[in-house]
């Protein structure tokens, strides 16, 4: 077996040094009954070539987004990945290191996280950010938990424009903590009024911009009302590229910002792993979940970085920890940070503009198709269209024509009748005008 260096003669020498007759003898504490009953219906070892063949065949059963024009979003976006990014994150010193518990030999990871924390704080317009969470949805749930600790209240309000998975994950985890979560109905028509619902019983209000259905939201007025009532405003962002063109949530008065970083960190990979970006105000750092890297000096007075404020965490605080998280999404956070560094301010803003340009071009062409209505008046790179017939059928028929033309809202809200004819559509810099024409042409055929 190619991954195992010990030879039989090594094993014999080592058993002799231990004073044991066999390896099985070392397992003598395992119950005999369980050892006897252990039968596994699984294959034996295979060569690298055989594994490649089998997995290659499995992968080939999927239609990948490089094979068909695709306009899919809903929190997971296809963006171009610069070649340098994948090279950097495949360096073994990043890929195969553990959490940086030994700072003297982990300065690479620690400095990269410090740079990541700074980048996240800058693009969200917040004061501080942590070293990452699992993904946007779990970060949202952690944000609500944190708001409950800060406010010592146990009720949360979630807008109907928040990604349904974020709301689902939050509602699931809060149920076990006896936090009441009020979820507003899906809001594709932009009718929801949140301000009147803010009261001193709430720990937080959770909103999203661009919203799940594409609408852009200015939550400045809501933030002011929240502040007056001692309620924290949590703003979710599912595509961080949007932060290159839009007013940052921090400037609207957000108390906590959570972002799904996948879109800038690499491949969609069927939705995971992602990375949750988590930013807040400095005064809340001790209530913040997750790891934090801070600047310090070493014994020779040289600048360096170290995991800090770890007394909030499970390995010290145990049942009183701010979260049970330990392994988070380090490598994906690094990938996000590398991409941000490659882009720089100029590239980041240009990428955002390019996304918005492609989306507006798509929207204008779709608006000319009979039976199609684009719902949001302002949007970034994603919007909802209303069709005259059920969107799920349309998507299947588009797929048969080789186009992945959006996601039916019913996939997320199967029991929401008003959602049946709604389709979520995204365009990014990876779409060409030819892709758009193919999509629009195919949609005309399907709808006619």
């Amino acid at each position: 077996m190619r991954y195992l260096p010990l030879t039989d003669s090594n094993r014999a020498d080592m058993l002799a040094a231990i004073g044991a007759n066999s390896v099985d003898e070392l397992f003598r504490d395992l119950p005999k009954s369980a050892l006897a009953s252990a039968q596994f219906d699984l294959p034996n070892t295979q060569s690298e070539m055989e594994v490649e063949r089998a997995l290659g065949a499995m992968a080939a059963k999927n239609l990948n987004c490089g094979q068909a024009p695709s306009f899919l979003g809903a929190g997971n976006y296809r963006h171009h990945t610069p070649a340098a990014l994948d090279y950097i994150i495949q360096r073994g010193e990043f890929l195969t290191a553990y959490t940086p518990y030994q700072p003297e030999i982990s300065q690479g990871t620690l400095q990269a996280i410090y740079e990541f924390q700074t980048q996240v704080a800058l693009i969200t317009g917040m004061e501080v950010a942590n070293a990452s969470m699992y993904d946007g949805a779990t970060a949202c749930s952690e944000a609500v938990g944190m708001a409950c600790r800060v406010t010592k209240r146990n009720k949360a309000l979630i807008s109907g424009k928040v990604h349904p998975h974020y709301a689902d994950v939050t509602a699931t985890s809060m149920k076990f903590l006896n936090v009441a979560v009020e979820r507003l109905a899906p809001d594709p028509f932009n009718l929801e009024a949140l301000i009147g619902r803010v009261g001193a019983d709430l720990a937080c209000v959770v909103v999203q911009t661009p919203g799940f259905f594409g609408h852009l939201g200015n939550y400045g007025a809501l933030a002011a009302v929240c502040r007056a009532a001692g309620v924290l405003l949590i703003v979710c962002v599912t595509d961080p590229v949007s932060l290159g063109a839009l007013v940052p949530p921090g400037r609207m008065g957000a108390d906590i910002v959570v972002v799904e970083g996948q879109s800038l960190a690499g491949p969609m990979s069927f939705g995971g792993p992602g990375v949750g970006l988590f930013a807040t105000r400095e005064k809340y750092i001790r209530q913040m979940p997750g790891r934090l890297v801070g600047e310090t000096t070493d014994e020779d007075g040289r600048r360096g970085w170290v995991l800090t404020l770890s007394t909030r965490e499970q390995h010290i605080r145990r049942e009183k920890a701010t979260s049970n998280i330990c392994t988070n999404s380090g490598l994906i956070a690094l990938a996000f940070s590398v991409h941000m560094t490659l882009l720089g301010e100029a590239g980041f803003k240009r990428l955002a503009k390019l996304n918005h340009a492609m989306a507006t071009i798509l929207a204008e062409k779709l608006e000319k198709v009979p039976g199609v209505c684009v719902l949001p008046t302002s949007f970034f790179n994603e919007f909802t269209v209303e069709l005259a017939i059920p969107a799920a059928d349309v998507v299947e028929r588009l797929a048969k024509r080789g186009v992945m033309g959006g996601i039916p809202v019913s996939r997320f809200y199967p029991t929401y009748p008003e959602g049946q004819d709604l389709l979520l559509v995204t365009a990014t810099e990876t779409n060409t005008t030819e892709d758009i024409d193919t999509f629009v042409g195919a949609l005309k055929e399907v709808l006619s």
Partner: protein
Amino acid sequence: MSQIRFSKDHEWIAVDGDVGTVGITQYAQNRLGDIVFIEVPEAGKEIKAGGEAAVVESVKAASEVYAPVSGTIAEGNGALVDTPETVNTDPQGDGWFFKIKIADVAELDGLMDQAAYEAYLAELDA
């Protein structure tokens, strides 16, 4: 005339009339090491003996400071928030955590005096 009493959790309370000043002992600060963060209670908070009153954190450890007696918090030592190291340098002086208006002075009888506490420490280190 003030008297000092000690708890098994290494808190001290200096009593003057019905007001006690509470902190952690030299032994406790020594065990914690460099203290980096302290959270003190707000005035007016009612607390039972043995209840969690304050938080003290060093780089590697975090622990609660318990109220040695029941009562109402009269004052938290706000100065510690910016200079937690005071607890390392002067735990039984400027490093006090809070003052408490004692509900029942009889509860003090359940605590150790200086000699008993020293004997207790000797036992711990044995």
